């Protein structure tokens, strides 16, 4: 029975269009194997046209055809063609530069109040830790996570503390391994958790940030009690400006997520979360970037630069750099 005589409408429909589908399948397979770039101009144009034709065929076939083989094939073909046609087109470099110029600074400006709240929680924690230490120095052991081989502790002498600050006695293997140690350090984990836990209605984020502030407050108070306030400030500032800011920013991002759960407004909570995640994630990326920068500063800068004014200058100028980037960059319309 030839096609023209076939009485079944859906069989004629299929026979008329099958060569086009086959060609589309061939182009899609080529795209999947070797990428859109490997297509010639003809093939690229054919891909767009044939894809739309196949979608139209699918729409019609669902209405008129009961041919299971045809329906399954068209569904699969259209799905794969869709994925080939709507593949991400942007280059990685373009993505990164857009993120650095527009994405991150814009998000930081929009969420500035929340970042401020993050700083506030951190500062409050610091003050609380400081006051607790003044009240009873044994709080230090509770608040500051210590390892057994850490020379710093309640019983350390001023000379021991000083040696950590200036000779790097806490890192035996020199700059690079200090950098490595940092990546696994306490603060990186804190920043990550602070961000992710924001989704649980802000509470764990705020608590962790507060606790981290307390540890720093007690740490500073310990050094102050040994008369090393200026030294420890300079020591902390060289990377701490960046590192603590990263925690405050991660906290701001976490709070933004928590906000969506607490105050979804007109939206469903999941939709509110999706909306807020756009900016919150950029803050998380910013925090990650700053933590890597802090690791570099800690690994190299802190060992190479030994006097107080230079340490303070570096710390503050790095801070000024972050502020300048986040406030000034990408103010225009994003392309």
């Amino acid at each position, binding site marked *: *029975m030839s*096609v023209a005589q*076939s009485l*079944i*409408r*859906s*069989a004629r429909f*299929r*026979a008329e269009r*099958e060569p086009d589908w*086959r060609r589309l*399948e061939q182009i899609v397979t080529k795209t999947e194997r070797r990428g859109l770039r490997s297509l010639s101009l003809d093939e690229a144009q054919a891909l767009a046209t044939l894809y*739309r034709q196949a979608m139209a065929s*699918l729409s019609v076939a669902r*209405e*008129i055809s*009961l*041919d*299971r*083989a*045809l*329906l*399954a*094939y068209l*569904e*699969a073909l*259209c*799905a*794969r063609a*869709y*994925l080939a046609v*709507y*593949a*991400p087109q942007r280059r*990685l470099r373009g*993505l990164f530069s857009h993120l650095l110029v527009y994405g991150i600074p814009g998000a930081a400006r929009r969420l500035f109040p929340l970042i401020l709240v993050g700083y506030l929680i951190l500062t409050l924690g610091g003050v609380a830790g400081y006051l607790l230490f003044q009240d009873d120095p044994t709080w230090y052991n509770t608040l500051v996570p210590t390892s057994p081989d850490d020379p710093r502790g309640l019983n350390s002498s001023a000379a021991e503390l000083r040696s950590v600050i200036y000779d790097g006695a806490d890192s035996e*293997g*020199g700059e*690079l*391994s200090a*950098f*490595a140690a940092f*990546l*696994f350090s306490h603060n990186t984990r804190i920043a*990550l*958790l602070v961000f*992710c*836990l924001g*989704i649980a209605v802000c509470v764990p984020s705020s608590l962790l940030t507060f606790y981290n502030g307390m540890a720093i407050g007690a740490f500073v108070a310990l050094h102050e009690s040994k008369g090393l306030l200026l030294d420890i400030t300079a020591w902390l500032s060289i990377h701490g400006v960046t590192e603590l800011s990263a925690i405050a920013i991660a906290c701001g991002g976490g709070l933004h997520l928590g906000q969506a*759960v607490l105050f979804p407004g007109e939206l*469903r*909570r*999941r939709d509110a*979360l*999706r909306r807020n*995640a*756009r900016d919150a*994630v950029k803050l*998380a*990326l910013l925090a990650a970037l700053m933590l890597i920068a802090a690791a570099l500063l800690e690994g190299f800068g802190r060992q190479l630069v030994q006097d107080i004014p230079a340490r303070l200058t570096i710390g503050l100028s790095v801070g000024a750099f972050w502020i300048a980037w986040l406030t000034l960059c990408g103010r225009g319309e994003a392309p």
Partner: protein
Amino acid sequence: MIWRRKTKDAKPQRNPLDPDRRLITDFVPPEGVPIRFDVAGLGARLIAQLADILITVAGLIAIMIALVFSDLLPGTAIIVIGSLLFFAIRVPYYSLSEILMNGQTLGKRLSGLRVISADGRTLSAHAVTVRNLMKELEVFVPGTMLLASSQLDGVSAVLLVIWILILGIIPFTNANRQRLGDILAGTYVVMLPKPVLLPDLAEAPVSEGSFSFLPHQLDHYGRYELQTLEALLQVNAASLNRAALLRHQSNLHKVAQTITNRIGYPTRVPEDQAGAFLLSFYRTQRAYLESRKLFGDAREDKFHGSRDSQPSGPS
């Protein structure tokens, strides 16, 4: 739960061609024709995840061994590179590979999965980053804590179990099996379908004999039975071994008998003509049902006449 439902989620729809599969029903590309992807099973996703972990860790170890033996770098530098790579095989690996490979990591490619954007548009770098950042919370942090679980005290262990349970339950609470990261990013994980076009039975030559059917004999069945019959007839007899071929032929005969009984076909169909009978019945029935459908009378299955009353027992 913190999720308040303002609108009810659509009931999980089953694939009409294969009722064991779940379908994504609300996925509409810009062309406006919904594409029904199969929801990826959680087992396949777990396997893809494990494969990814194996691949990345193996890659990391291979690079480290190569560095150690090449003697190009001092020991401390190797430690630094190792620690950087250790972070790179987590969120950055998953995000970058899903951006570069259009929604697939190596593990997903192996198990034929794909991430798509729920709104029908191009999968954005933002969505990929979000779903993989949340993976840190869902997989890596609990995973590493689980590995170190011998050092946990009672309270932390209970908290860890609760954490894993809550995040593990989320995919079961929604029809499209989205984990928390998928919900936040607005993505689905789907099976990558394979386009295989089987021949059109309406055009296959009928070998011998001619059977004809009257309209009232075609009123008994609907789409479901027709397509089940098609699946039976699409079996490629040439690829079967002897035992399977015999079984296939006896199946054809049984089906042919059932159909003749049900529709009241006047003559008995001899066993060697069962295939030809079924093929010509399939054609006539399909032409009939398709024309009924064009007139607005779409028949889903053999209960089409008694939709309002309880479906009665099998024929």
